[in-house]
């Protein structure tokens, strides 16, 4: 629960942000002096109530938003020097899958990113097939994305990011609007990515659905990092930050998932 002060040397971080702030033109201070880091291979939950600044923070991490103060570093290098490479290495799955989907079929949508990277045709096909398989979308390859179910759409958005072979995958509320089965399917997909060695940052309100898989939990409150620690430490203070405390007082960490293990 130490609010990110001391710690290992900065070179150890795959990605870190220093004193990151963002003032919107209308005067909102959405994030305020955030220090944040993630290590290679980590599975991190980023939590906090509505409007606490989670979306704004993660949109800085791959350079979509430019900070009004502070800086983001990838392997110790400021990302603003090479935004394109940063965006390839840090994949972002948007809160609203509909705005992320551009292809007119599932197959073409997944191919969109790799095509932009100008990979050759065979490599594109290989990656799209791998993404279809990993996220269980093979039978939908010729379907129109906008007609898919909520869970399938989310998995498609994840597949599109995975096909670019990023180091870090950041998911913004991937469980919102999903039913039980949808949550499980998406969670399976995320875990498959983590097993493949991708670093995962999962933005969520729901400790109960996925905490069992996380190594670290970071809580934001009013634009600042309010807590940072392993899930078993954080669980006790969730209520202080407007996050629902898991049902049942003495739940083991392993039980905090919607997958049967």
């Amino acid at each position, binding site marked *: 629960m130490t609010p990110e002060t001391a710690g290992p040397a900065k070179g150890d971080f795959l990605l870190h942000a220093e004193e990151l702030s963002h003032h919107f033109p209308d005067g909102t201070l959405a994030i305020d002096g955030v220090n944040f880091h993630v290590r290679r291979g980590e599975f991190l939950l980023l939590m906090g109530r509505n409007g606490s600044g989670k979306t704004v923070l993660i949109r800085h991490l791959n350079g979509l938003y430019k900070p009004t103060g502070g800086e983001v570093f990838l392997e110790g290098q400021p990302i603003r020097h090479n935004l394109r490479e940063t965006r390839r290495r840090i994949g972002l799955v948007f809160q609203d899958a509909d705005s992320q989907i551009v292809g007119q*079929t599932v197959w073409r949508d997944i191919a969109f990113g790799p095509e932009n990277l100008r990979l050759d045709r065979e490599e594109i096909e290989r990656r799209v097939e791998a993404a279809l398989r990993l996220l269980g979308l093979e039978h939908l390859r010729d379907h129109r994305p906008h007609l898919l179910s909520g869970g399938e759409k989310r998995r498609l958005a994840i597949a599109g990011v995975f096909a670019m072979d990023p180091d870090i995958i950041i998911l913004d509320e991937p469980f919102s609007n999903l039913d039980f089965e949808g949550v499980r399917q998406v969670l399976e997909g995320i875990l498959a990515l983590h097993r493949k060695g991708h670093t995962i940052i999962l933005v969520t309100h729901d400790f109960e659905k996925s905490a069992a898989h996380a190594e670290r939990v970071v809580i934001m409150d009013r634009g600042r990092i309010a807590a940072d620690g392993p899930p078993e430490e954080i669980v006790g203070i969730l209520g202080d930050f407007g996050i629902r405390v898991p049902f049942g007082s003495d739940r083991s960490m392993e039980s905090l998932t919607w997958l049967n293990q």
Partner: protein
Amino acid sequence: MAESIIFHFRPGKSSLHRLDCRFKLLLMVLLTVSIFSATYRGLFLISLCVLSGVFTSRLIHRGFLRDFRGFLLILSLIFLSRTLTEGLIFGLSGSWRFLLVILLGMVLSATTDPADIHGAVYWYLKRLPFIKAGDIGTRVSLAITLIPLILDQTREVTEAQKSRFIEGQRNPVFRILAQTLPLLVSTLYRSREITLALESRCYDENTPPHLSRPASGQWLLFLSTAAISISGILV
């Protein structure tokens, strides 16, 4: 999500789906020209051609008529105004020509992936000097992608307001504002989110589109349709 049927791409395997988009664009232009310049006999030929396109693309199915109602209104306006000024024959042929063009547009958008339209437009434009082909091609296919989304959104806003008894509101100005404002806001929000999402997927308008060489069967389909549309002007 409420979805409008027309002007949406519907993936499929028909011969029109497979026809190279460069051919399709050229045929669109040819057919449109001949629809407006053909004699009555020529118009008959071209109508057969367009209608067979409508059938092979399986354009007509549930929901089609519902979406088509808006166009019926325009059609009847054309019919009325031309009949009143120039007589019944002109009224009929004028609205028939208009109908053919609309159907043609629907067949094209139903059977063609916007990404392919982008590729084809790029392919034609890069032959012309002084034009940034990538730029224009991208804008064309983005517009084609956005139009159906906006149509969908319109329907959703209208339905949401019906459920809140917008009909009870007598003031027409208020009603129009109530319908267009949320649409405008959500479209603006949408386009901003889409732009961000494109950026984060490394979108680059100068990515050369992928085009493969058309098979000989496609040449046949292209040449025969082109022949019909040209003879439509001559006969």
